[in-house]
């Protein structure tokens, strides 16, 4: 499943295990979820729809067509916040890690940014900028960036001083230092930040949309919530989860294996 925690990617083990070993637990997990869900639909009738109703709503949404438009709207917002927060956060994180002064100055800001609840950022963004697209994008970016800064900052602080000394003795150019030494060491942190920022942007965009608009996945969620259509709500949640999981498995996992090939089957 999706890693929401900002953990550094683990060293990919050489063998992923037999296919059966991976499929059987997943199937069991789904079966267990259904086994819990189904009886509960009788307890919470009519507010908890049966799995079957959710599936039909899901299929309905995809065949009726307007779901694509809403996904596209949300995706655009997510992409904006994701890209901007990763670029901004990485730059600030590296700067903080390399300069004591910047670190001392920016640390409290980052701490506040990390602690501030998403809805508070959204409300203030709407109050200050107004209910339009720019306030949503600003809120999203402000919510996600501190986390990126934090992850990258920790990564830069962990840079090996022994290798820095070696680079100095061998008179590496600044470019070599960046490319060969700094970047590979913080690549894991940046990668974790990129992954985290993507998942987190999706979570926040739902709140932003639910609070400020009926367009986008979050807007539809709150729209159907107000109409008391829990089956629709769950169908949208599944759509959202599906997108996240697909991107994580198909995009991030592959990139991860490529970037960290050097960890290989290293023996100390």
């Amino acid at each position: 499943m999706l890693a929401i925690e900002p953990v550094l990617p683990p060293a990919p083990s050489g063998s992923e295990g037999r296919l059966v070993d991976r499929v059987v637990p997943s199937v069991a997990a789904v079966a267990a979820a259904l086994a819990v869900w189904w009886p509960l639909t009788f307890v919470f009738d009519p507010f908890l729809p049966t799995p079957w109703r959710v599936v039909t709503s899901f299929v309905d949404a995809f065949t009726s067509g307007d779901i694509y438009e809403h996904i596209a709207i949300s995706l655009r917002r997510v992409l904006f916040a994701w890209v901007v927060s990763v670029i901004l956060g990485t730059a600030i994180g590296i700067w903080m890690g390399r300069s004591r002064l910047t670190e001392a100055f920016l640390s409290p800001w980052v701490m506040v940014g990390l602690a501030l609840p998403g809805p508070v950022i959204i409300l203030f963004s709407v109050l200050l900028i107004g209910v339009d697209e720019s306030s949503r994008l600003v809120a999203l970016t402000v919510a996600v960036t501190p986390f990126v800064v934090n992850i990258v900052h920790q990564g830069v602080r962990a840079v090996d001083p022994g290798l820095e000394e070696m680079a100095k003795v061998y008179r590496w150019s600044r470019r070599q230092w960046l490319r060969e030494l700094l970047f590979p060491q913080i690549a894991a942190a940046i990668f974790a930040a990129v992954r985290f920022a993507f998942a987190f942007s999706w979570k926040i965009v739902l709140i932003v949309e639910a609070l400020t608009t009926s367009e986008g996945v979050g807007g539809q969620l709150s729209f159907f919530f107000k109409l008391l259509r829990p089956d629709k709500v769950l169908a949208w949640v599944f759509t959202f989860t599906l997108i996240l999981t697909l991107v994580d498995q198909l995009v991030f996992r592959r990139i991860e294996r490529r970037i960290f090939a050097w960890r290989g089957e290293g023996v100390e």
Partner: protein
Amino acid sequence: MDEIDMIDQYIDIRGLSFWYRDQPQPAVRNVDLSVSKGEFACIVGPSGCGKSTLLSILSGLFTPQQGTVVVDGKTQFADGHRSDTETSPCGYMFQDARLLPWRTVRQNITVALQAAGHPEDTWEDNVRRHLRMLRLEGYEDAWPLNLSGGQRARVAIARALAIQPAFILMDEPFSTLDEVTGRFLRGELLELWQRTGVTIVFVTHSIREAVYLADHIYLMTAGPGEIFARESVDLARPRRYEDPRLTEIEGRLIDMVLDRWGYFNGGEVV
């Protein structure tokens, strides 16, 4: 040390002192050191005597507050100032190999070649030649994490030699290896040194290691470090650790440092 002045010196250090910031005492004090071209020099001192500081100054990392450093007739430092003349980097071996784990063996060496200003079309041949010299052919594309400690040390030696440095500095490079690997590599290093004629300044706390390796041994006091003796080892190579003459020189040197170092740690003098 008048006799040394007579010889044309390759590395010449005079009256050198260095203070770390916020330290009341200098790390090294009034050091005179002369190494001739092609010499294998060993600097021996107890832990914390400023040996590594001395190497950091020679490699250009630190600027000494006092004294002069001249390499091959060119002044590097004079009275707290670094000279403007661009110098080529020296080769350096640290206590650990200090290879980039995310770069292959080949890439680890080519980065150093690029930094030292070697033209790109010479890299391939250079890397191949030095890896063959260190019996690492076939390991060009290996990741350092998949190598043994001895192999990593050999890559570090190859890197130091490949840039064709003015001299090579070594800071206890074999101290973390096991005894047999260490002995083996010392022998290999001496062979390479004889073949290439490179000047080596080797720092160690082991008198035995110094006697086995060096032409001349420079003994340092406990910190603040000063060099108080220069001893020659006139034994033909290859030397054997079990050679009684080697043991005798070792004994004499140990007698010399006993009162200077203020303690005797039997485990350290191996």
